[in-house]
């Protein structure tokens, strides 16, 4: 039994719904009690979809358990077929129905419907959402791709043809990544045969085999299916995920090699602004900013590599909640000289962020809230999705335009952080404290006594609202007191490094068990950390 207040991934049948909802002409009959229908709102509210997911829930109740839930399931399948007339159906159970062991696959088969009915076995007590999406897509491809056949050589003169695999409903920026990648492939002279699951019908899955190779955008959902297609149809698939300029260049080279075309005209994409923005001198302040990255494996790996190589950040933490890809994330962490954090407990992630003391957090919506509590700037770079992750504007993460978007995404929170520091710095100034009105409105003072003017805060680390989570011993040990002249000297240090100077000095004093922080300690620490 695992105690959790929040979960990065839903149960595996939510993954199946992400695949079913992405597709057309497919219907999912889910043996599940009524409460499970909450899942509809993920799609209709978070993603603002304009139709209900193509899902029929049996919504069995306690009184049905004593009777015949199997019969209820069969009736639901028959009714769903009659009403929606899908090209194919998937059938399965959610966590509760798994326990009553009605065998949805067998029951549906007994109905002998004139369409393919694909049973899903998604063990709800072992697996999670991304696995469920991957398994569902794999099962669909297996059932609908047709009989295995070797790949035929491309006729001369025909443009190379690929499939794009991985985008789903409720996917993090999948909508826009897809537009960007299609554009990129088109500029290389490569045609797209089928995109799946997003927008594909069951019949389209039968055409997957016509392509020369597969582009896997999201290994979490598409790697199993791509491996199946490789094995049975001889289609190679891409390994590189085009997050960042470097990865996009490698992706272009990889795709070009698979397609037998020239990558040169497309490399360093003409619309790519990141390299120059990163080289321009105003970006100097980004150098070695300490960044903590957490998300699904694909985004965590891609963004960490980009943050280090294309923005000049130092990756001080890297992790994922997707255990299926732990190996890849560990390998990437090793490149940054750190140990990967593989966990689906957000409290562990919060503890790791506190311990790493980063200057920027790149994570999911949960890390955004953790960072807010800790007063650290943050950007969201991965699912689980939130309504904000479906912006009205075009905002891909992949390809050269995606790299432009990511540059802004990663840099803007730091600018905002800088502004907050400025506000903090000037808060003590006589014409800028809370008691005076805005100067452009005449600056008339509000009725506040001098005593109410807040002291300047150097560390943006407000006390947590509820019981704090206790971490390493040394976090709770009280730091040595500051001698007045050392405190005075600290205030002369520019505000944007003052917080760091304070924490470094206190750490230095703590490690040496110094009873008092003097002027000497301050400069000893500066020399120590400046090495």
């Amino acid at each position, binding site marked *: *039994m695992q105690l959790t207040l929040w979960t990065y991934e839903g149960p595996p049948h939510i993954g199946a719904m992400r695949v079913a909802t992405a597709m057309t002409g497919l219907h999912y009959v889910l043996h599940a009690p009524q409460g499970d229908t909450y899942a509809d709102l993920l799609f209709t509210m978070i993603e603002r979809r304009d139709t209900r997911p193509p899902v029929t829930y049996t919504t069995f109740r306690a009184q049905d358990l004593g009777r015949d839930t199997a019969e209820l399931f069969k009736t639901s399948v028959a009714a769903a077929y009659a009403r929606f007339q899908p090209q194919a159906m998937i059938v399965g159970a959610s966590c509760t129905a798994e326990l009553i062991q009605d065998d949805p696959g067998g029951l549906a088969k007994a109905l002998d419907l004139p369409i393919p009915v694909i049973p899903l076995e998604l063990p709800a007590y072992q697996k999670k959402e991304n696995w469920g999406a991957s398994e569902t897509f794999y099962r669909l491809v297996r059932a609908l791709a047709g009989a295995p056949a070797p790949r035929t050589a491309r006729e001369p003169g025909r443009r190379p043809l690929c499939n794009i695999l991985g985008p789903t409903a409720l996917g993090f920026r999948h909508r826009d990544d897809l537009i960007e990648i299609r554009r990129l492939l088109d500029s290389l002279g490569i045609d797209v045969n089928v995109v799946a699951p997003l927008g594909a019908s069951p019949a389209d899955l039968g055409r997957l085999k016509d392509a020369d190779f597969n582009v896997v955008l999201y290994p979490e959902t598409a790697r199993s299916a791509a491996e199946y297609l490789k094995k049975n149809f001889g289609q190679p698939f891409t390994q590189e995920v085009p997050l960042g300029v470097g990865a996009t260049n490698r992706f272009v080279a990889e795709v070009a090699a698979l397609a037998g075309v020239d990558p040169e005209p497309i490399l360093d994409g003409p619309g790519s602004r990141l390299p120059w923005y990163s080289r321009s001198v105003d970006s100097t302040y980004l150098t070695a900013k300490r960044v903590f990255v957490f998300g699904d494996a694909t985004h965590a790996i891609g963004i960490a590599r980009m943050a280090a190589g294309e923005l000049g950040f130092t990756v001080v933490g890297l992790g994922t909640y997707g255990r299926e890809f732990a190996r890849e994330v560990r390998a990437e962490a090793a490149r940054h000289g750190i140990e990967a954090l593989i966990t689906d407990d957000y409290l562990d992630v919060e503890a790791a962020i506190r311990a790493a003391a980063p200057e920027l957090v790149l994570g999911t919506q949960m890390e955004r809230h953790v960072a807010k509590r800790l007063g650290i700037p943050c950007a969201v770079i991965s699912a689980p999705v939130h309504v904000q992750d479906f912006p009205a504007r075009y905002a891909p993460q992949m390809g050269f335009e995606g790299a432009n978007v990511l540059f802004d995404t990663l840099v803007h929170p730091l600018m905002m952080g800088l502004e907050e520091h400025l506000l903090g710095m000037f808060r003590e100034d006589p014409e800028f404290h809370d008691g005076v009105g805005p100067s452009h409105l005449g600056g008339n003072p509000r009725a506040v006594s001098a005593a109410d003017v807040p002291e300047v805060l150097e560390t943006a680390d407000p006390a947590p609202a509820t019981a704090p989570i206790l971490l390493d011993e040394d976090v709770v040990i009280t730091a040595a007191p500051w001698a007045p002249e050392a405190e005075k000297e600290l205030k002369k240090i520019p505000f944007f490094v003052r917080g760091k100077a304070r924490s470094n000095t206190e750490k230095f004093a703590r490690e040496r068990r110094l009873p008092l922080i003097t002027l000497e300690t301050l400069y000893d620490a500066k020399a120590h950390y400046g090495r």
Partner: protein
Amino acid sequence: MNAPVPPPSACGGIDFHQEHGQRAVFCGLTGIVWLHRKIQDAFFLVVGSRTCAHLIQSAAGVMIFAEPRFATAIIDERDLAGIADANEELDRVVTRLIERRPDIKLLFLVGSCPSEVIKLDLSRAAQRLSGRLAPVRVLNYSGSGIETTFTQGEDACLAALVPELPRAPAEAAPSLLIVGALADVVEDQFLRIFAAMGIADVRFLPARRAGAMPAIGRGTRYLLAQPFLAETARALDERGAHRLAAPFPLGAEGTTGWLQAAAEAFGVDDTTFAAATAAGRARAETALAPHREKLGGKRVFFFPDSQLEVPLARFLARELGANLVEVGTPYLHRAHLAAEIEMLPAGTRVTEGQSLDDQMDRCRAARPDLTVCGLGLANPLEAEGLSTKWSIELLFTPVQGYEQAGDLAELFARPLRRRALLEV
């Protein structure tokens, strides 16, 4: 004078239907989202699956980030291997939780679909843990979707509290108990009105703190503030309390009827009652008037959701002049809703239960001006050109009493106003 001939399928004046089929409703776990805000030192631990945790975080939205007083103990494979193991696991999880949250005085173990199906005995677990964790009290109830629909979770929670309530002395003077979670601000408004009526001893269930739950006994007269509290009422009756039949305090008319029931039970004379309620009634009338223009004559369709549908429909029809196309409700409690059913326009179609696709067909065919439905259906119906009001907001917003009558009307008027405003 001839008695009017009732319509053929009429049943208490309404056109009553029952439906069976696919339902699109939340389970009782959802109630935790507002109950934990109400009882400020209680913690709700769902014993369930990842689906339960995912449901609650999806329904609770942003609340989840503040280290809330609810969590899920997720059953995994190892727990399914043997029940004894699951009990030990539960004890371990609860002990860790209570150590971390010393502010918790009352812990609810909340049963879910999986815990019900594997027959994990949470009442025994609650007893065992209550002994071990004293003075923290541990109670249990089921919020499972195979047994409870949405607001029935609150009913199950309050029903679990009733046997724990202190016994009022036999000779105690009659007291008034208001049953059902209301916003603090609404409780305070009602307290002032009762005080003006001369009823001083008024308590609320649930109380805001675990240690302040009301005593009950034979002198307790109770008013249901919510229409979905069948089990709680049964438990209160068993302890000798008496329910005061009344409409529900939604809208000015419902509020007056509800207060009137208390006034009659406590012998408040008409003049005092009129004086105590006059200001509120007048303010409600002022607040309602502008909405009457917007909602008058509008055709409204309710999908089943919270069991608040019948009182809300009555309010929309009688105080705002709306026409009711269909009033869906997950359950129709005839005794508790007797006064409400009486007030519905004759022939109103009331549907108990649900067959989702059929009901959506009826809704599409009727093209109502406003459809009240759950979050899963709202955007799809909007995309088909129907204006919708998502119903969960009716649970999270203070809507009861005179002072909120205008706010309640505004909740229904806003989607229509918005549609009229938008040029795109």
